[in-house]
C-alpha cells in the first residue's frame, strides 16, 4: 500500500545487499570526515605547512640533507599525512563513536562488523588519496621532481598500505581502551611527538644516535619506506617488515582489548 502520505508500518524486514551497506557506510564516514574542520586541519593544512616551511627554511636552518630539501621532505610529509589520517583521525573518531553509542547503534543494524571495518578502510583510503594529490601538487609547485619509476610507485603504495595497517591498529588500540577525551589528548600528543622525533618527516639518519631507535618506530619505518620509494625508486624491505610487525602486534592486542561501548 503506498497511498500518498500514508506510512505503511507493516513488517517487511531484510538487510540491504552487503555491498550497498558498505557503500552507504563508507559515504557516510567520508562525509563526516570532510565536515570536520579539525580533521581537515590535521589531514591537509598541517602537512602543507610543514612542507612549505621545511622547503623554504631548509637553507636557513642549515638542514644537512643528502638530497634537495623538497625531494627529501615531500616523501616525509606524505608519510606524515598517512600517519595523521590512519592514526590520529581514526583514534579520535572511533573514541567518540564509542562514547556516543554509534558503534552500539550500528551493532543493532544489519551492517556486520566486517562491513563496518571495510567501509572505514574505504573512507580512509579515499581521504589518503586526496591528501596525496593535494600534497603532490604543492610539492610540484615547490620544485619537487620525483623519478620513482614503476618499482618506486609500487613501493610507495605498499608502504602506504603497510603504514595504514600499522597506524589504524594502533589508533584502534588507543580508542578501544581509553575514554574519548583521553584518546583525543593521547592521539594528538603522540602525533606531535612522532612529528618532532619520530623520523617521519626527516630521515632517521638526521637524528644522530636516536635514529637507530627511531627507524624501528612505525613512524620512522613509514618515513624511510616512502623516502626510499621516491628517492631511489626502490623497496625498503626492512621498513616494510617493521610496519607489518607493528600492524600484527597492535592488531592482535586490539582484537583482545577493544570494547565496542
Amino acid at each position, binding site marked *: 500500500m503506498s497511498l500518498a*502520505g*500514508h*506510512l*505503511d*508500518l*507493516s*513488517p*517487511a*524486514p*531484510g*538487510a*540491504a545487499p552487503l555491498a*550497498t*551497506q558498505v557503500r*552507504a*557506510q563508507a559515504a*557516510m564516514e567520508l*562525509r*563526516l570526515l570532510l*565536515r*570536520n574542520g579539525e580533521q581537515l586541519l590535521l589531514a591537509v593544512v598541517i602537512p602543507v605547512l610543514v612542507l612549505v616551511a621545511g622547503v623554504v627554511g631548509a637553507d636557513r636552518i642549515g638542514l644537512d640533507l643528502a638530497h634537495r630539501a623538497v625531494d627529501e621532505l615531500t616523501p616525509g610529509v606524505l608519510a606524515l599525512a598517512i600517519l595523521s589520517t590512519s592514526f590520529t583521525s581514526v583514534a579520535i573518531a572511533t573514541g*567518540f*563513536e564509542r562514547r*556516543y*553509542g*554509534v558503534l*552500539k*547503534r550500528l*551493532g*543493532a*543494524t*544489519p*551492517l*556486520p562488523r566486517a562491513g563496518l571495518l571495510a567501509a572505514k578502510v574505504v573512507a580512509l583510503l579515499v581521504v589518503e588519496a586526496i591528501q596525496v594529490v593535494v600534497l603532490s601538487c604543492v610539492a610540484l609547485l615547490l620544485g619537487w621532481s620525483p623519478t620513482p619509476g614503476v618499482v618506486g610507485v609500487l613501493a610507495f603504495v605498499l608502504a602506504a598500505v603497510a603504514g595504514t595497517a600499522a597506524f589504524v591498529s594502533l589508533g584502534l588500540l588507543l580508542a578501544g581502551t581509553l575514554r574519548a577525551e583521553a584518546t583525543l589528548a593521547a592521539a594528538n600528543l603522540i602525533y606531535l611527538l612522532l612529528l618532532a622525533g619520530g623520523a617521519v618527516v626527516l630521515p632517521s639518519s638526521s637524528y644522530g644516535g636516536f635514529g637507530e631507535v627511531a627507524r624501528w618506530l612505525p613512524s620512522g619505518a613509514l618515513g624511510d619506506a616512502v623516502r626510499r620509494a621516491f628517492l631511489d625508486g626502490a623497496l625498503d624491505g626492512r621498513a616494510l617488515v617493521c610496519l607489518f610487525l607493528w600492524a600484527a602486534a597492535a592488531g592482535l592486542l586490539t582484537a583482545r582489548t577493544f570494547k565496542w561501548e
Partner: protein
Amino acid sequence: MRYGAVTAVDGLDLTIDTGTITAVLGPNGAGKTTTLETCEGYRRPQAGSVRVLGLDPVTQRRELLPRIGVMLQQGGAWSGVHAMEMLRHVAALHSHPLDVDLLGERLGLGDCGKTPYRRLSGGQQQRLGLAMAVVGRPELVFVDEPTAGLDPQARRTTWDLLRELRTSGVTVVLTTHYIEEAERLADRVHIIDRGRLVVSGTPAELTGNGVRRLEDVFLDNTGRPLA
C-alpha cells in the same frame, strides 16, 4: 545476568506474544535495560536461555538483526550528523525501509535541518532514536524508555506510532518507569524489581478492573526503603 558481583537480572522468565505491546515496568536499576539488551544480543546470559523470534540473539545475531528494531536509551548517532541524514543512512542498510521523509515528518524530524545531532533537543534525539528503530520495517521492536524526558505532545506522537505499529502487526516491547505509559499502551505489563519478575498481567488484571490504581500495585510490589 551478572556484572561482577552485582546480579542485574535473576531468573527472569517471560514470554511475549506477537502483535502486542508489552511493557516492562520497574524502578530505576530494576534490570529493564539489561533484560532488553540480552534480547537484542548485546549481552550473553550466564545462565538460562533467550529466544527472540525463535532465534538465539547471540549465536544467530546476524539472522535476527534485520528482523528487529532497537531504540537505545540514549545516543546512537555521530555528534556532527543531521537527523534526516542519520535516518536515511540507517534506512539504506535495510532492503525495504519505510519512506524516510514521511517517517521524519510524522516524528517531527523534518525541521531539524542541518542542526548537528549534538545540538538537537533531548526530545528530538529521542524521536530520532525511535525513527531509527522502526525505519527498517522490523517484525519486533525493542524501545528503551521511549518517552523519557518528552513533552506531552511528543509523548502522544510516540504513543500513537507505537499503537499504529501494533495495528500493523508489529510486536512492541518497551521499558518504562512511567505507570501511565504502561497502563495506556500495553496489552501486558510485567513489573520487575531487582532483576526478578514480581507480577504480570493485563492492566485490567493487575488493577482488578480498575479497583486499584496501577501505581499502587507498582509501589506495593517494588517497595524498598529509600536510602
